[in-house]
């Protein structure tokens, strides 16, 4: 048995190596709050999502009335969030015309329903990625939109929350690696122009948005875990019964 344990351990290690290699380079992702069961945060995230994202991005597999799952009533959804549809049973379609979008940004803004699931990788969850993305924008005169991003270089999307965050500039350090001078991001930022909210408030808002996107990627996720606990408890009990039943049958087999 010992040999098998060693093998399994080696396999796990190798898979980690494989994952780390697949992500390849790029900056490390920050850890998102990842609270998909905090209803207040999810509701705030939904509000930010509808106000800032849904103009250009759709969430075409998500129905407005599914927001009831995060504690909103149908009337609340209708009055506060339903901008792009007529009925609460409608899908969250974007307001933008896809042909114009392509002309403006060079690519159609992707659908965001499962964006948090698709962006996961060895660097962390998809939520971590999006959280990092919204905290890594900087002004760059060399790009068509005037914006650039550390985690997504030459991103087509200009900073959608820039009024809130203000303009920032990343601080680089020059270091010598393999005999070459390379610019390394220090993890520090300089505020160029102030935003309408404080840095802490901004982080909370982005955290709420990311929570919402993560929840929207799989609305059943919390229910899934809750049911899973009971299934595990049942199977534990059942395994015990099955084990004793087996022992009862086999006890006089010689």
């Amino acid at each position: 048995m010992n040999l098998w344990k060693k093998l399994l351990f080696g396999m796990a290690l190798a898979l980690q190596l494989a994952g780390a290699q697949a992500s390849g380079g790029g900056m490390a992702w920050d850890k998102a709050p990842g609270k998909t069961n905090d209803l207040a945060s999810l509701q705030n995230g939904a509000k930010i999502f509808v106000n800032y994202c849904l103009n250009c991005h759709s969430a075409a597999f998500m129905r407005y009335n599914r927001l009831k799952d995060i504690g909103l009533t149908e009337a609340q959804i209708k009055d506060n969030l339903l901008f792009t549809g007529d009925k609460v049973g409608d899908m969250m379609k974007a307001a933008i015309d896809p042909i114009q979008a392509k002309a403006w940004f060079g690519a159609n803004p992707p659908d965001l329903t499962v964006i948090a699931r698709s962006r996961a990788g060895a660097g962390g969850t998809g939520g971590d990625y999006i959280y990092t993305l919204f905290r890594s924008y900087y002004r760059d005169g060399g790009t068509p939109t005037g914006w650039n991003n550390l985690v997504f270089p030459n991103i087509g999307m200009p900073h959608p929350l820039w009024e809130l965050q203000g303009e920032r500039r990343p601080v680089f350090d020059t270091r010598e690696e393999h005999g070459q001078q390379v610019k390394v991001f220090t993890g520090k930022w300089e505020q160029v122009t102030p935003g309408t909210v404080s840095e802490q408030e901004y982080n909370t808002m982005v955290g709420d948005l990311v929570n919402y996107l993560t929840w929207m990627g799989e609305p059943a996720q919390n229910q899934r875990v809750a049911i899973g606990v009971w299934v595990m408890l049942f199977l534990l009990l059942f395994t015990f019964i099955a084990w004793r039943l087996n022992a009862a049958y086999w006890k006089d087999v010689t």
Partner: protein
Amino acid sequence: MAEFKEISPNAPLGAKLHNWFDNRFPTLFAEYRKHMSEYYAPKNFNFWYFFGSLAMLVLAIQIVTGIFLVMHYKPDAAKAFESVEYIMRDVPGGWFIRYMHSTGASAFFVVVYLHMFRGLMYGSYRKPRELVWIFGCAIFLALMAEAFMGYLLPWGQMSYWGAQVIVNLFSAIPFIGPDLALLIRGDYVVGDATLNRFFSFHVIAVPLVLIGLVVAHLLALHDVGSNNPDGIEIKKGPKGNRWSPDAPADGIPFHPYYSVHDIVGVSVFLMAFFAVVFFAPEMGGYFLEYNNFIPADPLVTPAHIAPVWYFTPFYSMLRATTDLMVNVLCVIIALAVVLGFVKCRCATAFKIGAAVAGLVAIALLKTFDAKFWGVVVMGGAVIILFFLPWLDRSPARSIRYRPDWHKWVYAVFVIWFLILMVLGIMVPGPIFGTPSLAWLTNELVAMVGTLFYFGFFLLMPWWSQLGTPKPVPDRVTFKPH
């Protein structure tokens, strides 16, 4: 027809019912006895013997969840991705059904790989069980086709580009390749026509073949009887146990003894299975790949295309077959011919024949593209399993009574298989970032692994006879519980 049996009108209801059916459908009871209550399996089965029944369980899970998925899934390139999300969101319990099916695919390969390894360890393919093993290999092949085609259906980026890469492999076959690839796709690129035919194969054709093969696998097994960890033929041992005077003394009725035993295995397996379904359905991107949550886009090729983990050992063998590998194979063939000339005590005509065959093989290797040979290697890695019953010449059937160093050969084989699996997941090129180790590429390591894999099987007629086997006992080793 058998005699019509009358029963006393005062008999209990159960006996009357039994009699009613037995007069009209005696096969029912005869088959039940043959395969369940009077099928005598060796009583010394261990942990490794759970995986056969577990494979059946997973097959049932896949069929039942598949039936429900088909009720809501739309095999249409414009709607497939959307309909999967519809299942995940709007269909009540849809996420549960879908996760069971996606986890079931990986679980199927986990149990089948372990089941095959059990056969390898205890020589379960040896005479008279060759056909049991061959049906099993055919099941494995059908399962690979089933998994491959099913993976296209969610119509995500990995579905699309995985299918594109694998179908393109067929076009490397000389002469017929391009037309064959066209026939498989039904189009010049993977598209709606491909999705529709893969759907048809995935839900009807291949499952029918699979079920037929599983029935053949079990019928053939029950005809010759199960092997066991000692590799001893219990039918050749003493007769008579407490259930029957003619049954093997070391046998035990499958039902109820192994049915209650398998329930324990099922329960433990379901704990692992549902832990994935409920707590980690993506399994860190190995069961559901992250890229597959992006709808298929024929214009955007993902940076890294890798098949799902259960195909990667074979995929890395394909990638390992570069021009270098072809040259290495030529050298190996040439050396084998020379060695045959010097060492083999056989007719000169035979030696000359072998030399000509070797030359033809080398000529063919150098004529066709390495890509084609990669496809041959990948296919050959599966096909070679079919020949295992005739490759193994060890006097002892079970690993327990083979020379100790055989265990190490098997262990190294398993390690190489796992290394190939990991290499297939990783991107090709240098494994480590260090410039001094840049020569150590994924393909180079995979080449060594591929050569070991084939060496293990092709040289088995030679190495499996070496060493002194331990004495095999007359009766199975069994410790009462």
